């Protein structure tokens, strides 16, 4: 039971902002209604006046209909997510002039997000109301005019406004022709769909312009329930009172990633969250996880989590269980969709969940505010809310069939784009965990290296790998001997010199492909092979990959007639892990200057041995 309004006001009056904030969030969660939204907004404003600091985020709404009653709902959603949403609304139906006329409130306001909320019946009224009268040609003209209007407005808005732009696509109409719409020459719904496709194309080709699929939102809520024709006629408010919250939530799904209020990892409970029943009591035969009810509901939620995993959201387990029981189910239950390889971290023990969440954040090397937590048990959720308030707690309904949708709708997993790196991130973390477990079970370090079954490929930097090589020089700090940063232009210029060579090393092992993880740039100048850059991604530190790359360089150097390899170690704030690299490989210290050290290896005294546990797939710079 959430605190009453009177209790919340007392907390504020008593100077207990943290408690007041938690109580407001609980009240809002229990009753996300317009009345409670007004209360929540006014109390958060009071808390802010009393010194509470929330991240500000400015939203301009340009519109063709009444949106004012939605604003308190939007602001309440923002406040409980830690955002102070400052909202300004354009004049009624004046969006075109407001965008095309410079020097008005939009410049001064300088929004982080500008929403263009225009209804189909306002921008293409003829396609809505006069459809049955229109010739095919007239329909095509209307579609073209609307497309041109969107292009003009969005292009001008992009050129003029900073921040993000979010445009509503158009709602599909009830057809004026009736049931024959799909088979007549001028299909009304198709005409609107063509405009929507054009809006998508315009957005895709512009920077930071996004589309809210308004028709999909209405369809999900139900077209009949969505509209309130009475309020449209009375107050130009087309959306039913109880549905307004859903438009506000949809806006939040964009505002979360735009303002950085996102989570990188989802931490999940097991019993009655990932499967039905309690593994410790029901056993692997007894838990419910199949295609009937309720097992199917749990398979749905697992499917949803797998899709998050594929989008780069890390998954972790936090469950009070005997680890052996739980792991047996995760590994062997035929109904499991998620398997050990999908989890970047598993905490299956009897410790307090808030503690475990802290341990998970630190193991994954992300902030605790980057964690979201899902658990069917409201007591655990409440405990985490109290003990680890930075964690985003996802509430689940009582009915397990609603679990998947609760996870899917959490705005903290929204992203504005999806890169290849996102797609492979979660898998890489899980592979890393399995390597760590292997290293803990291995009896010796050599034993561990051997069991990894590493294969390395060394290749001269080429057109395909240049971008990654540059990225490594820009991003690598820990295992980086000289920390020289290169741009693409600089690196390709450096490599065009006859005496220069650059090599990348990529490593695969039994758990997966790490991709290109190291780079060396050398200069072969007569008797001396000078190491300009030598770096290794932190993904593979401590696995002798650096020895393999150095062995390759030494071999290339002797083949080119050099008798010495030498290089600098230049300390930066983070590269202590690489400080003993040269001494470990038999180099002698020959010079020290401004904290940097110069090391040298006489190739006449023998080669650098390639690590026997790494299988080698080498290329050569001479093949360029």
């Amino acid at each position, binding site marked *: 039971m959430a605190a009453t309004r009177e209790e919340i006001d007392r907390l504020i009056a008593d100077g207990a902002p943290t408690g007041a904030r938690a109580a407001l969030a609980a009240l809002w969660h229990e009753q996300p209604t317009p009345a409670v939204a007004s209360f929540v907004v006014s109390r958060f404003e009071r808390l802010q006046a009393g010194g509470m600091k929330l991240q500000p985020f400015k939203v301009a709404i340009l519109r063709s209909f009444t949106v004012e009653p939605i604003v308190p709902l939007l602001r309440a959603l923002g406040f409980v997510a830690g955002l102070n949403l400052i909202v300004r609304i354009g004049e009624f139906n004046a969006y075109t002039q407001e965008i095309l006329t410079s020097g008005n409130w939009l410049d001064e306001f300088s929004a982080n997000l500008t929403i263009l909320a225009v209804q189909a019946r306002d921008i293409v009224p003829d396609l809505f109301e006069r459809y049955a009268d229109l010739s095919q040609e007239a329909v095509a003209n209307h579609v073209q005019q609307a497309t041109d209007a969107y292009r003009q407005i969005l292009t001008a808005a992009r050129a003029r406004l900073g921040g993000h732009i979010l445009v509503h696509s158009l709602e599909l109409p009830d057809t004026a022709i009736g049931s024959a719409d799909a088979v007549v020459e001028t299909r009304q719904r198709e005409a609107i769909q063509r405009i929507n496709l054009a809006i998508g194309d315009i957005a895709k080709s512009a920077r930071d312009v996004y589309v809210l699929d308004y028709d999909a939102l209405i369809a999900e809520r139900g077209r009949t329930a969505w509209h309130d024709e009475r309020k449209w006629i009375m*107050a130009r408010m087309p959306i*039913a009172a109880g549905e307004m919250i859903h438009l506000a939530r949809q806006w939040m799904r964009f505002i979360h990633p735009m303002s950085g209020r996102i989570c990188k990892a989802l931490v999940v409970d097991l019993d009655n969250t990932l499967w039905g029943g309690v593994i410790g009591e029901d056993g692997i035969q007894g838990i419910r996880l199949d295609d009937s009810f309720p097992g199917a509901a749990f398979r749905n939620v697992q499917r949803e989590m797998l899709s998050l995993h594929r989008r780069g959201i890390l998954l972790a387990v936090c469950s009070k269980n005997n680890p052996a029981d739980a792991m047996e189910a995760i590994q062997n239950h035929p109904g499991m969709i998620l398997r050990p390889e999908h989890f970047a971290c598993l905490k299956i023990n009897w410790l307090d969940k808030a503690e475990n969440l802290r341990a998970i954040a630190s193991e994954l090397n992300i902030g605790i505010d980057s964690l979201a937590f899902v658990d069917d048990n409201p007591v655990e959720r409440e405990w985490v809310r109290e003990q680890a308030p930075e964690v985003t707690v996802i509430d689940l309904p009582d009915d397990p069939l609603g679990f998947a949708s609760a996870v899917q709708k959490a705005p903290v997993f929204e992203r504005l784009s999806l890169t290849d790196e996102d797609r492979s991130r979660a898998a890489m973390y899980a592979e890393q965990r399995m390597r760590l477990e292997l290293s803990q079970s291995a009896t010796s370090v050599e034993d561990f290296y051997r069991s990894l079954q590493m294969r390395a490929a060394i290749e001269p930097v080429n057109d395909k790998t240049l971008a990654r090589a540059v990225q490594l020089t820009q991003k690598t700090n820990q295992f980086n001997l000289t920390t020289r940063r290169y741009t693409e232009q600089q690196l390709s210029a450096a490599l065009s010199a006859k005496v220069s060579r650059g090599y990348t090393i990529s490593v695969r092992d039994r758990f997966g492909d790490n991709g290109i993880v190291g780079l060396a740039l050398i200069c072969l100048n007569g008797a001396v092979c000078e190491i300009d850059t030598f770096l290794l991604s932190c993904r593979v530190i401590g696995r002798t990959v650096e020895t393999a790359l150095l062995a390759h360089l030494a071999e290339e150097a002797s083949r080119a007639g050099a008798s010495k390899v030498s290089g600098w170690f230049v300390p930066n704030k983070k590269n202590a892990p690489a400080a003993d690299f040269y001494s470990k490989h038999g180099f002698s210290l020959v010079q020290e200057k401004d904290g940097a050290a110069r090391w040298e290896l006489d190739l006449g005294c023998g080669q650098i041995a390639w690590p026997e546990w790494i299988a080698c797939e080498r290329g050569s710079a001479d093949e360029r």
Partner: protein
Amino acid sequence: MSDEAAKKVIRIAADVLNLPVEQVTRQTAPTNVENWDSVLHLNLVLALEAELGVQLEPEEVDKIRSVGDAIDVVAARLN
């Protein structure tokens, strides 16, 4: 007039008008609440609808000129 309707409406009006609940009475109206403008009026109507799960008819909305009117409209609906 039902007490239940009165209690609900006064609570909602206090939230939307940002007034302490003990200051809201049947007589509370746009004429004696400074910030009760047309936007707030619409917010109040929609808040009543969302809370009660109904869509009020235009005639009912027109009748609402004070908190007392709102209580009467809601009471009629709840009966």
